[in-house]
């Protein structure tokens, strides 16, 4: 009769069962996937330290052939021969685009997710279903209508325009993820806060938001990397070269020099630095069992 919605706290490192083969299946698959994933990146990394001649003459795996050089990085960052606005400006543009385009959708999604998870309003589940349905709409079909609207509103070629575009594209998944996470917070905790005198605003800011940090951190990384690496939306909605982000800059490296993989790889590596920093900064919030201790599991 007491209805208690509790999810048992995740306990890490339970006893392993099964034989020797079984025990190695999961790590084996993980290692294979990791290697498959890392090899091209490693190739790119090595290429970025090779001269143009060396990179066309030897394969990247011939690591010690052709010598090492920092010229590629020097050229990408400082060469006046690159078309304006240049790599540094691209970098600043990317930051201007990415930060609001990460914060906005998560902020909106967090509030919406709380409502979907914990407030009672008409058609709640149908509206949520509608949000989930948006996940399957291909991005490509939205470009023309959205661009038309942006043109009418004079948002094309502006930073707020691309912020809005990324916010819109990111919201459906963000709401979906956060709502499911928030719905797993034990009901007793919310009711306890209600009895303690908290209204919805306090419950959201003091209880639900702090407890949702792992999901928000995961989402932030996801959205940040997605926007940081986005090329198509920037090309479509920004259109003006002085507002173009890194991705467009890197593509232009390729366009101008044809097969100059050495420059491209250096540019790509430079563009990876910030997402890596973001990832390592936020990964400490992936705390397992953040709600452990709340309720007896």
């Amino acid at each position: 009769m007491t209805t208690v919605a509790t999810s048992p706290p995740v306990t890490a490192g339970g006893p392993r069962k099964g034989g020797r083969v079984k025990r190695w299946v999961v790590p084996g698959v993980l290692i294979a996937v990791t290697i498959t994933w890392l090899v091209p990146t490693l190739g790119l990394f090595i290429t970025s330290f090779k001269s143009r001649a060396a990179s066309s003459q030897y394969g990247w795996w011939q690591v010690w052939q052709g010598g090492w050089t920092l010229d590629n990085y020097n050229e990408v960052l400082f060469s006046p021969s690159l078309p304006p606005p240049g790599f540094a400006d691209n970098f600043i543009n990317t930051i201007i685009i990415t930060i609001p385009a990460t914060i906005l959708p998560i902020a909106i999604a967090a509030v919406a997710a709380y409502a979907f998870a914990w407030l009672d309003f008409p058609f709640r589940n149908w509206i949520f279903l509608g949000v989930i349905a948006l996940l399957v709409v291909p991005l490509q079909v939205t470009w023309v209508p959205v661009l038309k609207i942006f043109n009418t509103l004079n948002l094309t070629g502006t930073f707020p325009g691309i912020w809005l575009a990324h916010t819109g594209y990111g919201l459906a998944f963000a709401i979906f993820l956060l709502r499911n996470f928030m719905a797993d917070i034990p009901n007793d905790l919310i009711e306890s806060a209600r009895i303690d005198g908290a209204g919805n605003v306090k419950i959201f800011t003091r209880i639900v938001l702090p407890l949702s940090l792992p999901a928000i951190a995961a989402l932030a990384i996801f959205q940040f990397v997605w926007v940081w690496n986005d090329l198509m939306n920037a090309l479509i909605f920004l259109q003006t070269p002085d507002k173009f982000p890194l991705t467009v800059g890197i593509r232009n490296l390729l366009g101008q020099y044809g097969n100059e993989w050495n420059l491209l790889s250096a540019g790509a590596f430079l563009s990876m630095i910030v997402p890596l920093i973001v990832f390592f900064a936020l990964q400490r919030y992936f705390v397992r069992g953040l709600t452990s201790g709340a309720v007896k599991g």
Partner: protein
Amino acid sequence: MAEIRMDDLTKIYDDGTLAVGEFTLTIEDGEFLVLVGPSGCGKSTVLRMIAGLEDITRGEMHIGDNLVNDVTPKDRDIAMVFQNYALYPHMTVRDNMAFGLKLRKTPKDEIRRRVAEAAGILEITDLLDRKPKALSGGQRQRVAMGRAIVREPAAFLMDEPLSNLDAKLRVQMRAELERIHNRLETTTVYVTHDQVEAMTLGDRVAVLRAVSPARPYNLQQVGPPHELFNDPQNLFVAGFIGSPAMNMIYARLEAEGEDVWVVFGDYRLKVDPRTLERHPGLENRTNEELVMGVRPTSMEASVIAGPDPDRTMRITAEVDENLGAEVFVHHTLNLRPVITPDVEELLADAGQTPESLGDTTEFVARISSDVDVTKGEQLDVVIDTRKLFFFDPKSGSRIGARSATAAAG
């Protein structure tokens, strides 16, 4: 502090299920009232209605002088202790306890004073800077109590707060709860499934039972623990209160001159006049089948009680449970078991079905452990026939019982 008054409270869920019906009960200021009953009897729903976590379909709820039907939980001035403790995992013990006060804009000094005082009462001062996950179950339980105490509310609501503790800790916390209640004298409504907890803690105990089409109300009987034990109004209350449970036997009364005898199987016991007094109208129900109830605690081995042939049963000790001070002796009566709707519900709560009883009646006697009991041997047991109970087998009511509504009042 305040009294809680419920008038004809009814809860119907959206899907049409009647969870609580015709619930009328006044919990006095400062009283410790226990709601007890099997799973699904509506006790937690009543508690959640008092808290404001559950809407009231019909009827009125007053806390103090205020009608609170439409008042939100935060404005009801109540504090609740949850079965799962529901501590905020990202806050320290201190912040957990201070949370409600901060929300109510209590001055900082006052918060500090109250938290320190409550922590002192509960002996958790050392734990104030820890997070809940660094606490044991018993410590979490204390913090949950502390969170309620610092609020100094009109009433404490407790939803099976001890059920997640191990047996030893539960007994300890039970004593602690009693001590805290004596000290604070705050009106407390306590929900439990455990009748021992109900009997030891409650100033009064309300026995609840799931509603049925024939009986659209939950409340079976309210009273001080000894009253429920000595004066149960129906088979359900009689069977639910008391451990081990009351023996229920189909029996017949026979009048013989001035005396009344109760007959079941091969046994004949002389009924004490005081039992007749407690059952007005019983003397008119001779020679018909009734349900006799007798508690295992109303018996003693004849070697200790002294010979009393008119009130002695010779039983076979098939199973004996020696608890040190006393022994429970199990015996099988060759009589069909008592199965009524009341009994079926009690069986279901214990995870049994009427079929699992077979076609004999289990009989348990408690005797002193000074008596040597040998398994399989016969034993003479004297029954205290002043303390027999007789129930109508159809309605389940005790013969001559006050009406159900009067009992609930």
